[in-house]
């Protein structure tokens, strides 16, 4: 009996250690923040931030689905749409987001959330090809576009970011289709295109490690997000960035508050904090993704900025073939299933 008592006492002391500070649980993409920004927020509001990362929208969704509670998520357009449709995120009280005035008006009112009722932009960009200037001829890229990934000349020299949606995006664009097609024949054709790419250049499909590997110059071609590219280019002068004129995906990652958030007020403070000029500047400088905050964007692209003349930092906004991914329930598992087959074969 005595022993059991001691056991209970032990448990008692352990649970007494729970922090009195308020906590904010943030779930964001990996390598997508300057960690000092988190520390700054903790200090300024005297709170504790629990920060978890994911490497795909789907992983984030699965975690959410399993009942995990977060206060902030940073999904991409189509996932914002899905979360709104399924009632998994709540409306943001824009009166609390006083720094919304810092945001580039072009990045507000996007098709996935027309009045920014549910989401506030965090970073944006597109998808293109990082290439080694010393090995790959720009003329090849311009002539072939996405088809360069099926050029046997570059066998074993290619990385492709491991994401079903983005892989299909390249195939659709190369074939001249919309990235949101639901036409079965077009989907099949894109599937064949990807299988052909897999046979011809035998790409390695990876995620976050792509950045470090391209900085080390491991491969000559890599399909990746513009922000990763901006960072790679700033670290390795041999690398350049190319976005095929056939079109690409123009995406925005936005901050949203889940319906089951435990600390809605603090979540608003976080969003407002991330939109502050100095915080946004620090963050974009470190991460390399394009900031929707006008002052931060101007500072890093100015003559003495970190991303001055960096072709990946400022995504083109004038190509009518560039599209935004929309959410379509019927495609949710079709594309990943086909992508699995491309990879497994």
């Amino acid at each position, binding site marked *: 009996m005595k022993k059991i008592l001691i056991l209970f006492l032990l448990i008692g002391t352990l649970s007494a250690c729970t922090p009195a500070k308020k906590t904010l649980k943030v779930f964001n993409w990996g390598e997508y923040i300057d960690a000092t920004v988190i520390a700054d927020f903790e200090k300024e509001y005297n709170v504790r931030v629990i920060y978890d990362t994911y490497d*795909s929208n789907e992983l984030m*969704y699965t975690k959410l689905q399993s009942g995990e509670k977060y206060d902030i998520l940073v999904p991409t357009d189509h996932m914002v749409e899905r979360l709104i449709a399924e009632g998994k995120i709540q409306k943001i009280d824009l009166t609390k987001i006083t720094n919304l005035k810092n945001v580039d008006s072009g990045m507000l009112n996007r098709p996935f959330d027309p009045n920014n009722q549910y989401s506030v932009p965090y970073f944006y960009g597109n998808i293109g090809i990082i290439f080694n200037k010393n090995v790959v001829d720009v003329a090849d890229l311009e002539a072939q576009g996405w088809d360069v990934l099926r050029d046997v000349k570059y066998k074993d020299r290619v990385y492709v970011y491991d994401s079903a949606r983005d892989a299909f995006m390249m195939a659709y664009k190369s074939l001249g289709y919309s990235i949101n097609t639901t036409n079965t024949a077009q989907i099949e054709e894109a599937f064949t295109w990807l299988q052909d790419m897999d046979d011809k250049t035998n*790409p*390695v499909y990876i995620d976050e490690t792509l950045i470090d*590997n391209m900085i080390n110059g*491991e491969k000559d071609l890599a399909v990746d997000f513009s922000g990763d590219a901006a960072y790679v280019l700033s670290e390795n002068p041999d690398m350049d960035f190319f976005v095929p004129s056939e079109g690409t995906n123009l995406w925005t990652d936005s901050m949203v508050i889940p319906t089951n958030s435990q600390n809605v007020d603090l979540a608003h403070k976080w969003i407002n904090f991330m939109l502050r000029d100095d915080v946004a500047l620090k963050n974009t400088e470190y991460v390399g993704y394009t900031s929707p905050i006008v002052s931060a964007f101007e500072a890093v692209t100015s003559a003495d900025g970190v991303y001055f003349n960096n072709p990946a930092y400022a995504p083109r906004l004038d190509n009518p073939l560039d599209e935004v991914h929309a959410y379509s329930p019927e495609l949710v*598992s079709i594309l*990943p299933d086909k992508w699995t087959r491309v*990879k497994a074969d």
Partner: protein
Amino acid sequence: MRVFANLVRPYLVWMSLFIVVPMILIVLYAFTTHGNSVMAFQFTLDNFGKFFDPVFIKVLLKSIQVALVTTFVCILIGYPIAYVIANVDERWQTLLMLLVTIPMWINMLVRTYAWISILSDAGLINTFLKSINVGPIKMMYTDFAVILGMVYNFLPFMILSIYTSLAKMDKAVIDASFDLGANTRQTFMKITFPLSLPGVISGVTLVFLPAVSTFIIPKFLGGGQYMLIGNLIENQFITVGEWNFGSAISLIMAMIIMLSMYMTRKMDKDIVQEAQGGNKW
């Protein structure tokens, strides 16, 4: 002593909560259709039928092949190491066994990550080769890298279990063999090796099972196109969102593992019986 019997109760609760309930859920998912609400189940065998697709069968065969090669390499490397350790002075044995287990103190992810910077095209080995004007040799994202990663991670299990059976062996039997005129080779082949087989077999189980189901090693060292059964299951749950199909694959996998456990158990028994029978003189 009866007082202590009660102490097992929390463990039973724990077991049923965290082992039995998830198992039941997996079975339930495997036999039902997608998008069930909690109350209305629609039973089906489609999830299993879906697996019999050339693409997936290929993944399964590849997983078994990679796991078999890993296990074989682990025996080849692990046996001599265990043998040497079991035969050195006892003071050294503890230290050497400690050295074998030390890597396991560090998280497996970190150790596997370290291999990326050793094996990559601009990594340690290739930088060295470049300095002596050889290479580069492509190692990352190949069978070699994945099997190396698996052998590296699972070798201690093999060494530990072989060492245990070698160390507890009755040395008098070996002395007897020498007394009867057998040379070192004969003694090893006829006495030591057969007596250590139970250790080898439990080592095989300890290596084969994690090797056939791991998903993080092929993901890191093989890339996304290096798909083994573990990756396929992970994929179904996380990116495809087909929990039912994922559960069915898990169940198929569990059956294969149970079958191989049963076979090794049976082998183990046969060998033990044979060893005992051989000792009857």
